[in-house]
């Protein structure tokens, strides 16, 4: 079994070096999903973090600002 290249000779006949040649569109779709998904996750995570921080700061804000 081979995912791509089985011999380096003759090297001039080799074009694509990466494995699974021909699946670039599929990898593009996966990468787009990962990219968008990361933004969504990051924004949700950040919102949750700020909600938590805001609740912890209730009543402690003056102390936090003064650095005590």
């Amino acid at each position, binding site marked *: 079994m081979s995912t791509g290249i089985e011999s380096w000779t003759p090297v001039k006949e080799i074009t694509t070096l990466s494995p699974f040649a021909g699946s670039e569109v599929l990898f593009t779709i996966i990468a787009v999903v990962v990219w968008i998904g990361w933004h969504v996750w990051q*924004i949700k995570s950040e*919102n949750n973090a700020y909600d938590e921080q805001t609740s912890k700061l209730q009543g402690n804000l003056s102390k*936090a600002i003064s650095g005590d």
Partner: protein
Amino acid sequence: MGYDMSIEISALNEIFVEFYYWITVPLMFLIHVGFCLYEVSISRAKNHIHTLMKNAMLVPMVTITMFLFGFWIYFAGQGPFGDFAGGSTGLPWDATMGSNFSDHIMGVFWAAFLLFSWTAASIVSGAVIERIRTGAFLILAVLVGSVTWMIDAAWGWSAGGWMVTDWGYHDAYASGVIHGICGGAALGILAVLGPRIGKFAPDGTPRDIPPQNPWFAVIGLFIIYTGFWGFYAACNVPIINFDGLWTATTIYGTPTTLSTITYNFLMSLAGGLMAGYMLSKGDSFWTFSGGLGGIIAASAGNDLYHPLQAFLIGIVGVWVAYKLHYWVERKFKIDDAVGAIAVHGYAGSFGVIICGFMLWGYPALADGSATITPWGQIGGAIIMFFVLGFIPTFIVAKILNAMGVLRIPREVELAGLDYIDDQASAADGQAIVNAEMAEANASSSL
């Protein structure tokens, strides 16, 4: 069989060009290192880590989007409304966008453009510190780094771009296509985001929020200067046969020399430093920012200026940027934490416009089919700063603001973005000390 020396020379030239661009990439990496150091140093201690992470995470977000569609925009968007049927160059599945023996150089070109993209997003990053949410910033970073700057590069930083072929737009080292657009983009966000709490007194008088570490901020700017060398180098074709003369050319294919740009880079830096020092009476922040502003102001025409012209343009550009910064700050209550709009936006736009007067009548393209003019440059500066800079980020920032995800909560801003994490770290540290003390007491009682 005869020995064909021309084949070897041709191969050597190709290897030299590939290596030349490859070297520019790690040099340009220093720009981002400098921006990180500079931005963190300008922020207050209570916001350091958040500021660092916001800037650092633009790197992967802009990188993946530059691979997915940013580079394709450059090749597909040469006309005013694009030329999207123009082939697959730059698309993620194109043969040149991967490990392929049929192409040895595209990845290095991509990296050079990518490093410009990081710079573009990083310029915006500094202006908005201490109150923007990381998630919102990263969306805006993708917008600037992988979309709008790539459109402006397609339009005005390519021999085939319509602004070059139709208007004779000339911007050899990106006064407008990087700095002008990013200054405009920062202003568009800040107009929606608003100033940091306490920046303006109740009567509207601006207060100075001094850098936490002015010394490190200056080191950051020094590192940016160094990286800027790589940027200048990457803007050239290093050696090419131009009408029988072996010389360097700009991205437009017009001739220059490495000597010219070396003179002019350093002379415009000198002019900017002197102007910044004089205007601010020796303030380190404005002096070093002035050095950067001087280079940016002269960059549009630094392929052709005389060194003394670059020097004087650097001085005037920084004077314009400095005066505009404080006028806009007072008039519109814009809190630009690092002076990015001034150093990049105003100095860059000035640089584009003055280039139109200095190089009036010069051929904008190698074949002489377009000519540099003041009106072409003024139109270009407006497109860079307002049309592709200000307007897109203003609209997206408005949308993010309406969704409630643009600005951090007031309580978090007052306490500091790192406050809760710092408290948790302090508690963890104390718990460790307590545990160690208990262990020591137990050992001594044995």
